[in-house]
């Protein structure tokens, strides 16, 4: 990637006497991430909190769990 130009590269190319504040896009992005993260955590907690392989296998145990009673279709 191209390097920043100039010895004193700063926002707008001017010498800054004070340290710069956090840019607006960082604040907005951070807020969005926080909100989305909080929503995801809430969904996880409401769904039982299991986030291991069991969450994805439809059971608390990733190993085989019989779901059909009285004659399994072994296809």
């Amino acid at each position, binding site marked *: 990637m191209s390097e920043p130009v100039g*010895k004193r590269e700063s926002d707008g190319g001017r010498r800054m006497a004070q340290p*710069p504040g*956090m840019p607006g896009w960082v604040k907005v992005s951070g807020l969005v991430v926080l909100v989305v993260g909080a929503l995801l955590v809430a969904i996880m907690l409401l769904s039982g909190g299991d986030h291991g392989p069991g969450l*994805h296998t439809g059971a608390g145990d990733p*190993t085989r769990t019989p779901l059909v009673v009285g004659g399994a279709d*072994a296809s």
Partner: protein
Amino acid sequence: MRSGIRKLVLSIHIVVSVGWIGALGAYLALDLTTVRSDDPYLLRSAYAGMDLIVHSVIVPLAIATLLTGMIISLGTRWGLFRYYWVMITLLLTVMATVVLLVETRTIGALAEVAADPSTTRDELAALNSTLVHSVGGLVVLLAVLVLNVYKPRGLTRYGWRKQDQAVRDPI
């Protein structure tokens, strides 16, 4: 870092990082199949394919992306913590890599269940997908790509101090 070496590392970084996005696209195609299909043969193949793609392609690409990205940042004046876009890119890439490595356990478990010949059709259909993670991962990688292309302005306090130091005490 010398220009020739920087360009070499940059080339490798572009290949592995864009490759990661591409491999994730292939993984997503299989992941969607596990949601849309109840054909046991297709499901067994899809889970096997997902496991193979993750372990053989996605994990190595993710690690290579992280390493080459850090090498480029440290070897140029961008640094790792001087600019917000670099710092946020690093954070997102680390996060994506960690979640990926944790998720390989789940994918392995799913593939194992799917590969078991005694797993029934209903049990196969009951296996959930990893769609939330794969879509989430893709969103994160695209955000990183956008940041790397646009490089939005924003010097951190640390970056400002480093530049101030360089101006006051030029080497």
